[in-house]
């Protein structure tokens, strides 16, 4: 797999296949943690880290253990188990060696255990491998990193939108979650504009 293709996968994961705004995974942190820019950044950094790590572990488990035994229907169960264990491990390591980062991430770290964006990345990467046999381990890792950065881009953009919403004169019936969902859909619409841009860029 050439470098150009890897760059293509990376950009596609950020723009055209953005896990929040195009695939609608991870809406819970997208709405819950995007009120302030700094928490949005912390959450996205943690998610990116866990996405890459989870893909690094689940891809070999799936390819070398589950597929040869024809047990690929177990992937959801096994992946959740592995991701939960990984998040716990990351938490222990951070607490010991990087207490400032651990304190900054706070509650968001355990919350990632049940984040469907992380599970989605690890599972959808495998579907891509079925469609295109050259989509191997390295490509999967690059895709996971791109997905994490795409998560960060979406979170930071939306945090900016919400900080502006704070000072707006919003009709009473739309205040709170309704206006947040409306603005989320508008941001998602804007991401449709990236359709096909990566393929054309790399031609």
């Amino acid at each position, binding site marked *: 797999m050439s470098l150009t293709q890897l760059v293509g996968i990376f950009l596609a994961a950020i723009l055209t296949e953005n896990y929040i705004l195009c695939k609608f995974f991870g809406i819970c942190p997208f709405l819950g943690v995007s009120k302030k820019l700094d928490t949005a950044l912390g959450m996205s950094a943690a998610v990116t880290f866990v996405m890459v790590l989870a893909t690094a572990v689940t891809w070999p488990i799936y390819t070398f253990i589950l597929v040869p035994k024809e*047990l690929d229907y*177990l992937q959801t169960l096994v992946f959740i188990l592995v991701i939960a*264990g990984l998040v*716990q*491990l990351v938490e*222990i390591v951070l*607490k*010991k*060696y990087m207490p400032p980062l651990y304190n900054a991430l706070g509650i968001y770290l355990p919350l990632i255990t049940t984040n469907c964006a992380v599970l989605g990345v690890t599972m959808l990467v495998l579907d891509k491998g079925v469609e295109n046999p050259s989509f191997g381990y390295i490509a999967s890792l690059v895709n996971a990193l791109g997905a994490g950065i795409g998560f960060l881009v979406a979170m930071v953009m939306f945090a900016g939108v919400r900080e502006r919403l704070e000072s707006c004169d919003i009709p009473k019936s739309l205040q709170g979650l309704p206006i947040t969902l409306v603005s989320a859909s508008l941001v998602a619409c804007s991401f449709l504009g990236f359709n096909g841009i990566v393929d054309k860029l790399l031609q």
Partner: protein
Amino acid sequence: MNILIAVLIVVVIGLIVGIVLAVASVLMAVPVDEKAVQIQEQLPGANCGACGFSGCSGYAAALSKGEAKLGLCSPGGQAVIDAIAPIIGAESVQSVPKTAVVHCNGNDDNTSKVTRYQGLQSCLAATQLYGGMGECSYGCIGFGDCMAACEYGAIKVCSGVAIVNPEECKACGKCVEACPKKLISIEPKKPHAVVKCSNCDKGALTRKSCKVGCIGCMKCVKVCENDAVKVENFHAVIDPEKCTACGKCVEQCPQKVIHLSK
């Protein structure tokens, strides 16, 4: 047969994850500071930051390591000091209750507005536009950013000036940070003279913009026997530690800027 392999694989993966986590948690255990936990239980849990640490847990950790002094917790007051002192094995200290003080008396009777402002009803926003609407560019805006910041309902805005109720005030200092004009300070809750003006203009200008503005005439400095009053930036500043509330400066002040607090 197939189902047995499936069960086996999930069990084995679960076991591996469990063992790795168990080993990791033993290898990388972080010792928990028992003292800090005990101290934190005694603190009010308001996480106001008046002590200068990042919330109650930060203060508790610093106390247990002996890096912080007792009595920094203003919401807790004497009760918290008495509860924590035996835990860290220190002598209990006498706490001086504190309260927030607004250094401006420019209400609607004493000064007036020169511009009309229709934007966001917030002092911070209004300050960005030509320093606010008032004739005095140092005075209270009156939209009550401090009132919004106060979690104890101790501040209210009366005819354009914020007023602190010392009975309710816990001296957490949130209003001090919220005020864009920096008019609020935390002072001990004891009788002392308070200068209710922060105007940095020269006397002649101040006199035009507000009836009760400090003109920096130095009369209070001369009359004070305890060297508690200074004039800085064309307005008087009183050190509450030195002030004995004798009231001489209050009588002398030609602008009636100095008030006695209870």
